[in-house]
């Protein structure tokens, strides 16, 4: 899922909220969340 979100987020195909949900579901970790969104988890 990390690869998809990394690709999709800048194109607005995934939202910040969806990335946060992916962390909750253990599909990505907090470090990856920051890499994708440039935001702190």
């Amino acid at each position: 899922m990390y690869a998809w979100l990394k690709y999709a987020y800048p194109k607005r195909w995934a939202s910040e909220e969806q990335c946060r949900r992916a962390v909750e579901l253990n599909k990505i970790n907090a470090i990856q969340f920051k890499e994708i969104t440039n935001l702190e988890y």
Partner: protein
Amino acid sequence: MITQNYNNHYIRLNEQSHIIKGFSDAFEIPLETDICICKEGVRHFELNGVVNLSLFDFNNVPKYKYVEGEILETTEEERQVYLSSSPQPDPTAQDIMATQITQLMLENAEKEDQLQTLANQVTELMLGGM
């Protein structure tokens, strides 16, 4: 005697000093507000030694800015700000499908999570009953 013809190279900025256009006067007459960055250029616009370099990234965000006479690369943070403040065009069919993929991946992950929880509960019940 061979004479060398030079061209002037210009850049055009937006309000945030991002470079939104680069061209040679061989092909276009500059506006008064355009900035000449090279007076002895080749026929085609050149920046950092690259002819007709793309000034935008894959998200159509400017890659360069002009600060106090210097051409610098825009930072990742600046690109994110530009992207988030830009008006977005209507979503294409590809955008809609890609958004659905994200949604389906998350729904699938949620179901996997629920399945795992159920499997754990059943396992605990079975072990507890033995």
